[in-house]
């Protein structure tokens, strides 16, 4: 557990919980990023405007944080472009089919003690753990 960073994790968790609470308090909306991004892509959605504003805030966050000494690290992505594209497509299709991702189900839904969200979070976490175990240990990729 050499990489464990509990204090910065807790501070980040407070901010994520605060953002989710504020979006509900102010706009009455769930801070589920997959749903917000899907609405932002849908020109026929009435939610397109505020969704695009939320995504803009998310993308601008690293630029503003770099001023107070939190530089954005360069993302270490898989070498294979195929893995990147297939992974992205699965995340996009899967989160829409399952109605949420780590934020919508994992934070907002579980905070409401929603059975759907607890089941979804348990399944996507377990699946991802199995995929990492297979790809990093069993197959030696």
């Amino acid at each position, binding site marked *: 557990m050499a990489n464990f960073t509990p204090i910065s994790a807790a501070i980040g968790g407070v901010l994520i919980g605060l953002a989710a*609470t504020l979006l509900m308090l102010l706009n009455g909306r769930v801070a589920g990023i997959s749903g917000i991004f899907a609405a932002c892509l849908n020109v026929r959605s009435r939610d397109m405007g505020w969704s695009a504003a939320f995504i803009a805030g998310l993308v601008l966050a690293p630029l503003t944080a770099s001023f107070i000494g939190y530089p954005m690290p360069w993302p270490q992505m898989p070498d294979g472009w195929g893995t990147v594209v297939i992974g992205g497509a699965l995340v996009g299709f899967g989160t829409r089919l399952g109605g949420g991702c780590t934020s919508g189900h994992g934070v907002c839904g579980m905070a409401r003690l929603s059975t759907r969200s607890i089941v979804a979070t348990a399944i996507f976490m377990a699946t991802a753990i199995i995929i990492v175990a297979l790809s990093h240990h069993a197959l030696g990729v």
Partner: protein
Amino acid sequence: MQMLAALVCGLIFGWGLLISGMVEPTKVIGFLDIFGAWDPSLAVVMAVALGVSGVGFRLVAARQRPVFAAQSSWPTRTVVDAPLVIGAILFGVGWGLVGLCPGPALENLATLSPRVIAFVVAMACGMGLHRLWQEAAVRQPTESIVDG
């Protein structure tokens, strides 16, 4: 005002992901890698975020209506069905392969990493494919009635 509120919420959410290190795919993989050098940070992020929003949602739910909207859109579905389970499995496979879920993927667009851009474009295509499929499924029954 809803636009400004959403922008500020997006910023705060993004700061949370950045400070906690959850924007880094390797940090997320470190959490998922329970058979390797396990890094429980993601569990702390989630537990604290759950605690804050759990209390926050309870306070918000006691209000008549949101500050800038006519009504709150709390999710209403309660049934655990096949799409929920299959969707969660597909998402889990993609998340485990790359270490990015939608929030960190979008925030990483700020780095202009070509691989992140490809991931987000593929994610958008996956979402678009789901919408086309949903719309086709809605049209199907009426068409068959016309044909029949």
